[in-house]
């Protein structure tokens, strides 16, 4: 009885599925799915050899500091960094006094309440503050940016596939729309106000190219030449740090844990062998 019922249920489900497959296959052959511009012209991020790649990877302090400078002078005009506090900057090699100065001199003031009147007000940031947001709210952000909200950058490199390479590729990937694309998909001309970028999921991005010329940011002495490519790499490294500030601790403790576990596993294997030595199994 159980087997009869089971067979009936099995025949029902398998039959339904095979019928679905047959109708789907007919539709697939008679009307093959049309390729889309996103499918054909979207590109995977270009690969950079990062200092933080691999199990022994670490952040290049100089590079991350340069990236912070790019963020400060370019990105922070529109993008927030709400999950990072000024105090966290000690993690990329700034000392306490420098962090204090950076917070105090930050262009956007920290929101506060006037202690006398209770009215909302602003004051210079202190190390304990998180990076203040450039816009008071989403409505203000939309209004100032052609109806597109600039996303928060704290976790950007973890919120995209292959994030560090993605940020670098996106920043250096602006170009005019390929003629081939327009020939194949005449309806997909980049709308005005958007910018063509093959690394962006739907190819057209609201953000105008933020890094445009060599020397847009002035690097300190002894640093590499601030080309667009260099600045893009540096800011991608900085955003990798903001998304994963504990990466160095994680990797170094991982090495210690794995070494310990490997030794322990060899020991357990030896005790397993010695306990079973007299038992054939």
């Amino acid at each position, binding site marked *: 009885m*159980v*087997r009869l019922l*089971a*067979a009936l*249920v*099995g*025949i029902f*489900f*398998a039959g*339904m*599925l*095979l*019928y*679905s*497959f047959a*109708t*789907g*296959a007919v539709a*697939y052959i008679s009307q093959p*799915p049309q390729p889309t511009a996103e499918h054909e012209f979207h590109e995977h991020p270009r690969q950079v050899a990062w200092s933080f790649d691999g*199990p022994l990877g670490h952040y290049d302090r100089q590079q991350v500091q340069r990236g912070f400078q790019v963020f400060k002078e370019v990105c922070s005009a529109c993008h927030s960094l709400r*999950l990072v506090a000024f105090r*966290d900057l000690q993690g990329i090699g700034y000392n306490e006094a420098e962090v204090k100065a950076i917070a105090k001199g930050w262009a956007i003031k920290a929101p506060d309440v006037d202690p006398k009147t209770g009215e909302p007000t602003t004051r210079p940031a202190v190390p304990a503050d998180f990076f203040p947001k450039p816009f008071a709210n989403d409505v203000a952000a939309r209004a100032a940016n052609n109806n597109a909200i600039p996303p928060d950058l*704290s*976790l950007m490199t*973890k*919120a*995209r*596939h292959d*994030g560090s390479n993605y940020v670098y590729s996106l920043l250096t990937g602006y170009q005019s729309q390929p003629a081939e694309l327009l020939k194949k998909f005449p309806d997909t001309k980049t709308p005005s106000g958007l910018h063509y970028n093959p690394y962006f*999921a739907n190819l057209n991005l609201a953000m105008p190219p933020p890094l445009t010329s060599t020397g847009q940011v002035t690097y300190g002495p002894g640093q590499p030449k601030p080309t667009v490519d260099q600045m893009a790499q540096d800011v991608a490294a900085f955003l990798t740090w903001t*998304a994963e*500030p*504990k990466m160095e*601790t*994680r*990797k170094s*403790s*991982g*090495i210690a*844990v*794995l070494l310990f*576990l*490997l030794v*322990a*596993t060899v020991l*357990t*294997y030896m*005790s*397993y062998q010695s*306990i*079973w030595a007299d*038992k*054939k*199994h």
Partner: protein
Amino acid sequence: MSFPWAEHYTPKHPLMKWVDDRLPLPRFVYNAVGAGYPVPRNLNYFWNFGVLSGAALIVQIITGIILAMHYAASSGVAFESVEHIMRDVNGGWLLRYAHSNGASFFFIVVYIHIFRGLFYSSYKAPREMVWLLGVVIFLLMMATAFMGYVLPWGQMSYWGAQVITGLFSAIPLVGEPIHTWLLGGFAPGNAALNRFFSLHYLLPFVIAAVIILHIWALHIPGSSNPTGVEVKGPQDTVPFHPYYTAKDGFGLGVFLVLYCAVLFFAPNWLGHPDNYIPANPMATPAHIVPEWYFWPFYAILRAFTFDFFFVPAKLLGVFAMFASILLLFVLPWLDTSPVRSGSYRPLFKKFFWLLVVDVLILGYCGGAPAAEPFVMISQIAAAYYFAHFLIILPIVSRIERPLPLPNSITESVLGHEPAGVAAKPAIAAE
């Protein structure tokens, strides 16, 4: 007692005798995982995965309890509280990555444990109850893992909750009210997040309780073994301790090495980047996918694309998805072959490996976007999945000619019967 040769507990220290007379806990432990539990001597490494599943549950409970001390189950701050754990709690990144990857590794070892049971037909008499309780544990694990994935309140958390709770709205007439009642609203929100957190904290302890029943039921007939031949006498077994504690210790070491390699060096490898974007009810992700361990079932859910008379395709998919797990409950009565081990079942073995490949294909399709050709592939694979358990397995059991079985476990290990066994057949008859 099933094992007349099992050693009985005799307290050595007067204190232990005093305790054992008043509360026989030492005796209980001795019989459960000590020298008082005789285990077939020929278990292979696939028998390590029960203990590994238990270890994974313990890791999840310990890391989970500490995470709950720092997490805030409120839709306004849940995402930020997880980032607070990652950034500002001492060792918080370790706890959180250990917990999220721990869920994946829990499923890896449980899937191997289940497929071991399928290959060696561990579900057959007299171990049906062990199997049934195992399926209950699997269902509880799936519920727990699903609700846990909602807690960080990222985009995939939110939209995963939306899709899965939305399944209930496929029920005719009462579906919508049930959906609203379960969520405490019309869409996932603070009420849903709070109850998911509450249940996510509760269910692991329910799992632990069912595991106790699972092991209890196992200890009545004792462990199965790779030959599928029942234990016939003391020469076929070794005491659990120290033999299998030592072997499980080694298995645990290998498990921890692999788990820690992922945890420390690729902690986001098994996750989805979209869950690092805060939940936004106004923006649907391009492809909503659950965690990898649900992909085979998600593929079955999406494989139904047309209505059957008055039953909408979505409802059929929901039925099929639940049926794909619930059918495991009747498995002991579908496979009627008297031979347990797949090693001695040539035809069954071929279909078993076909099933393994089939489930991997279903998993791949479940993780892929809901577009052709993945839908067509998953339809074929899902059809085979149901046909395998519900049609093929009963027929195979009937028509198959199994290979000759060894006379005993010891014979299979030594290649001959040990001297002197024939002289005392009384043990086997007892």
